């Protein structure tokens, strides 16, 4: 039968199934194939924290959303055009994300009495029960068809059933006229040691593709044309990997070997894993006995002259709190990466949030400010990590990177930079005493930047002692009231002075006017999409999305002055808004907050603005 091929600007596909169904892989393969095809992409995994929650239940549903487009894509998309549901539970838990005209692909084999019951359906007609009876539903017995396909070519159907996700992927590839080449190449590499696995996956993928071509349920297919991208070499990258690579880049530029002391914690573990495989560039990783040892080994490594980093999520940052104070008072460079997740306590480990900002800014004893930066997209994690390490080493202080689960696990295509376009990193390493020093003064500061020098153990003549006790510039322990006050002020000032080096804050859209939208971190894509939608509807707003939180860019106040209303959007109860209130109390800050462990949806942002305009 002849299909009509319809051009579409963008499409959102949500792959969902049991957490053992391989939905993360399926989604990633679709995303990769689209990227190779030349589309813009953004992805978002949405999975439960249980590795294998009870099979077939709503709690065990794992999802992976892919947004592809022929022009700029900033978010993984709010609602989906296609939902792949490998079982009734997946259908049930994702029905709220369907666009009105969405296509639903289901594996009917799983929609038996037992499957429906496990998913908590009352009747044997889930579609009516969910009020989606009249949608475009591709009901395929995917399990049976996969079995048949494997039987026909003499492969063991039992072990092969695990690749039924590839059958579903084949259907999607057909639906969007996507070439199979890239995925076949993936199988060849992944299973290079077991050729029968290559055959099995290829066969099932192709059968899914052909099956879709033969059935009546698909009247038309779609194509998302390649986008016009800047020439260059591209790759897909997720935020966790980008952080790891950014740190390695700073290590190379500074000549300081990279050390990471860390403890596994969702959703940050990917950074430690990524660093652990790159020993070829001299990276040393130490999986510690706990979070505290993670930061303390890093502080030790920093003292010994490494670019030291510790990676964690919110609960881990809480544990590292005291040691972070030590790095502050000992004035040692250190990068702390917090890939935020929903809290408090264990909270919802796999869900994204921006609720650690207060902790990052204020969560320590004593006067202990710390520099805080926040990446705004998966690939932006690279330069954020690079600059965090640069600032930490050049200013001899800890820098916190507030990433988010949404960024760490989300991915997007990235035009690979050339390291020659990145600046040099010049840590203030000292080799000998200055003429006026009888012995090394560890807290003697550069008068311009207030930065002390980095004297590495092993350097003759610079022996000195640092530590958690307050000291004077010469390094002697001191409880002199005025010395303490001066050191506190100097450590704070050192961070403030960093503002001279960081880029000015940009405003997207209107440079002045009625409404300024303010945001930070991983909400960037949604904010940008909202701004562009509002503009197309004739609503004029400006968007100031902050990458630097402490210090703030030095033109922040000027920007706020130019707008009548300021509204701060955050995935928390208003941490950044409150911070701005303390920094610039002369302005009124409206708030839009969401604390559901989920990213914003563009619609709620535009709605909030439209309500404000009314």
């Amino acid at each position, binding site marked *: 039968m002849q299909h009509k091929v319809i051009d579409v600007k963008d499409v959102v596909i949500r792959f969902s199934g049991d957490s053992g169904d391989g939905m993360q892989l399926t989604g990633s393969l679709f995303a*990769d194939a689209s990227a*190779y095809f030349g589309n813009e992409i953004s992805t978002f995994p949405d999975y439960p924290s249980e590795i294998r929650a009870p099979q077939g239940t709503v709690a065990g549903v794992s999802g992976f959303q892919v947004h592809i487009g022929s022009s700029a894509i900033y978010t993984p998309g709010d609602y989906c055009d296609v939902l792949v549901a490998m079982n009734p539970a997946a259908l049930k838990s994702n029905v709220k994300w369907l666009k009105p005209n969405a296509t639903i692909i289901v594996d009917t084999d799983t929609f038996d009495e037992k499957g429906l019951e496990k998913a908590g359906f009352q009747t044997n007609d889930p579609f009516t029960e969910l009020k989606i009876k009249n949608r475009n539903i591709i009901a395929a017995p995917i399990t049976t068809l996969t079995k048949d396909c494997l039987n026909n070519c003499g492969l063991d159907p039992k072990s092969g059933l695990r690749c039924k996700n590839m059958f579903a992927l084949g259907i999607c590839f057909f639906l969007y006229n996507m070439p199979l080449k890239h995925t076949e190449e993936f199988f060849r590499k992944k299973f290079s040691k077991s050729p029968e696995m290559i055959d099995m996956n290829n066969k099932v993928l192709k059968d899914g593709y052909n099956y879709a071509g033969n059935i009546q349920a698909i009247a038309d297919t779609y194509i998302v044309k390649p986008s016009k991208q*800047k*020439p*260059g*070499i*591209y*790759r*897909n990258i997720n935020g966790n990997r980008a952080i790891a*690579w950014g740190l*390695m*880049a700073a290590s*190379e530029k500074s000549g300081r*070997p990279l*050390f990471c002391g860390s403890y596994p914690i969702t959703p940050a573990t990917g950074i430690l894993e990524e660093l652990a495989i*790159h*020993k*070829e*560039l001299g*990276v*040393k990783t*130490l999986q*510690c006995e706990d979070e*505290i*040892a993670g930061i*303390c*080994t*890093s*502080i*030790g*490594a*920093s*003292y*010994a*002259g*490494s670019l*030291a980093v510790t990676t964690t999520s919110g609960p881990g940052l809480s544990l590292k709190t005291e*040691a972070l*104070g*030590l790095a502050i008072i000992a004035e040692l460079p250190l990068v702390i990466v917090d890939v935020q997740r929903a809290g408090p306590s264990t909270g919802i480990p796999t869900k994204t949030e921006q609720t650690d900002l207060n902790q990052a800014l204020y969560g320590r004893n004593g006067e202990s400010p710390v520099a805080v930066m926040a990446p705004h997209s998966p690939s932006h994690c690279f330069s954020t990590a690079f600059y965090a390490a640069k600032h930490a080493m050049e200013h001899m202080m800890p820098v916190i990177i507030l990433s988010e689960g949404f960024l760490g696990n989300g991915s997007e295509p990235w035009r*690979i*930079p*050339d*390291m020659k376009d990145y600046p040099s990193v010049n840590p203030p390493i000292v080799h000998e005493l200055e003429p006026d020093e009888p012995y090394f003064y560890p807290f003697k500061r550069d008068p311009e930047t207030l930065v002390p020098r980095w004297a*590495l*153990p*092993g*350097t*003759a*003549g*610079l*022996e*000195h*002692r*640092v*530590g*958690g*006790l307050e000291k004077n510039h010469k390094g*002697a*322990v001191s409880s002199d009231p005025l010395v303490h006050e001066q050191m506190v002020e100097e450590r704070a000032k050192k961070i403030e002075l960093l503002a001279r080096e960081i880029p000015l804050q940009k405003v997207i859209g209107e440079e002045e006017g009625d409404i300024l939208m303010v945001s930070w971190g991983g909400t960037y894509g949604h904010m940008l999409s909202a701004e562009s939608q509002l503009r197309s509807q004739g609503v004029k707003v400006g968007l100031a999305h902050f990458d630097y939180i402490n210090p703030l860019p030095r033109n922040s106040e000027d920007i706020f002055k130019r707008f009548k209303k300021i509204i701060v959007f955050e995935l928390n109860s208003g941490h950044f808004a409150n911070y701005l209130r303390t920094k610039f109390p002369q302005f009124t800050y409206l708030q839009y907050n969401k604390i559901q462990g989920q990213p914003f949806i563009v619609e709620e942002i535009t709605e909030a603005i439209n309500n404000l305009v009314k």
Partner: protein
Amino acid sequence: MKFTPQDFKSDQEVKWCPGCGDHAVLAAIQRALPEVSEILGYSHERYVFVSGIGCSSRFPYYMKTYGFHGIHGRAAAIATGIKVANPTLSVWEMTGDGDSLAIGGNHLIHAIRRNIDINIVLFNNRIYGLTKGQYSPTSRWGTVTKTSPFGTVEHPFNPGALAMGARGTFFARTLDVELKLTQELMVEAATHDGTALVEVLQNCVIFNDKTHALITDKSVRADRTIVLRHGEPMIFGKDGNKGLVLDGMRLKAVTIGENGITKEDILIHNAEEQNHGMHMMLCEMEWPDLPVALGVIRKVKDRTYDDMVRDQVTEVADKSSIRCVNDLLRSGATWVVE
């Protein structure tokens, strides 16, 4: 270059209480370092003294070397980071029974388990001194302190047994009053490849005075302690006529010349035996049943963590085609947009 103890003294005023056992340990280490330096070919800048919190943790300020006075309990972790980052340094951790067996217990056992090449000197005075007299994880059962006015109701840790349990490669014990032995053990520890734990039974004159006096008092010391030396019989006593034998599964103190016991019946100490069964028994000896063991109880060869980390980096680098970050960024799946 030849050094003297004076070369390792910093200009800082030593602020421990008069009569504190810490003074003797400081003197012993300052006397040991010239010898260590000669053996290893090191000078001042190669030494880093790391500490946590407590009286003994003031130690780094008094050494004319690199020093890091950390936070409570975390010295082992800080020292580990320093050693992994720069394995050419001689890294020393100065810690107490509260610092390393209570708040820092986790870091201590994992440092030992990894066999990272650092020297840990554990000042055991069975009390919290700096916070003015609360019981510690090594306080004996029933110890009356400010926080245990009716006596403690918990078992004390035996640091040696803990080290054996964590598969430690080196454990030695000394007394603060045995300056010469302490000095000798510091040299042994410093030249051992791997985690070397030296327990110093040390007196706190203010809050737990004479806690070790039952064995350290000069009049009884020879009869109530035994200095173990590798390859030599386990003989002790002021007359040199007491020894240790195996009695079934237990150690037993005997007198040579009594009940038909001859010198040949006495056990020979083997600190280099991989199996730690005997070492564990020696660590756990307590007076009055048995003499308290001093000297090097265990010293066995094993690979160190810092060496293995370094070797892995070299090995992987040799095999990899990635030579710089530009290579890394372009590795794996990429595509070109013309």
